[in-house]
């Protein structure tokens, strides 16, 4: 029998893996953006779990808003990456230091 704790532990595990992905990644800013998408997915899953088990639809409405904002965020992020690649000709994170004072 699958209880609420099973779902919550899965969601926590997914979140921790994506946090580790942000730390491990030093080569590619695209993979960093993908890790952020994964974090948003685990947060959304958490919202849906609590919405299902407490019988409150507001959680699912919130997930709807998060999905819209995440789509906008990834579109702007990819636009920034394309223009960054045009300037630096590379996507390595440790080379992005143009704003260094």
């Amino acid at each position: 029998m699958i209880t609420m704790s099973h779902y919550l532990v899965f969601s926590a595990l997914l979140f921790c893996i994506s946090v580790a992905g942000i730390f491990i990644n030093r080569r590619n800013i695209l993979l960093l953006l993908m890790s952020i998408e994964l974090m948003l997915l685990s947060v959304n899953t958490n919202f849906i779990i609590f919405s299902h088990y407490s019988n409150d639809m507001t959680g699912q409405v919130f997930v709807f808003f998060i999905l819209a904002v995440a789509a906008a965020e990834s579109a702007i992020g990819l636009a920034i990456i394309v223009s960054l690649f045009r300037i630096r000709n590379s996507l390595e994170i440790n080379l992005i230091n143009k704003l260094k004072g």
Partner: protein
Amino acid sequence: MDILTILFYLVTSVIIISSMSLIIVNNTVHAALLLVLIFFNSAILWLMLKAEFLSIVLVLVYVGAVLVLFLFVIMLLDLPIKEKVNQKLYLLFSLIISLIMFIELYMVIFYHDFSQVAEISHSSEFNNTYEIGLLLFTKHLFSFEITALILLVAIIAAIAINMTNKQRALKQDPARQIEETKQSRLRIIKDKDL
């Protein structure tokens, strides 16, 4: 074990394994395709949690639009596949931090003992999409409008960031269009053979 339990363990193990390989993979195209797999399996998981509308939206919006955008950018940039650099320190650091986070979250989940929470079963007339729409257009109408505005801002920002080299971009010049006359554009040539 009933079929739902087996499905739960299958789906979650696929998600966990593919997210682990996503964060260590070198090839960005492979990472994007693994993300497609993760989102599909999450849609199944959301379906098991009776969020039918959102699971379809996840497949349509994420797999259909955002990940296609990701793949499009990867193909556009033509990134070289590099060998792994020595990153043992980062690996150790990230393992320690994520382990601490997971232990803390685990303690929170088992302190509250969520396993006792009873599942609510709806009648067969319960309509998930209808309920979400009802809330979205009554209680959360203002937030809904703000979301539309955010999407508009994202469209304008994504175009404005990449608008460089204005001379080469094709655009209309209304002043020149008005100044053009019939004589400057049209030339009548008499063909002798006819």
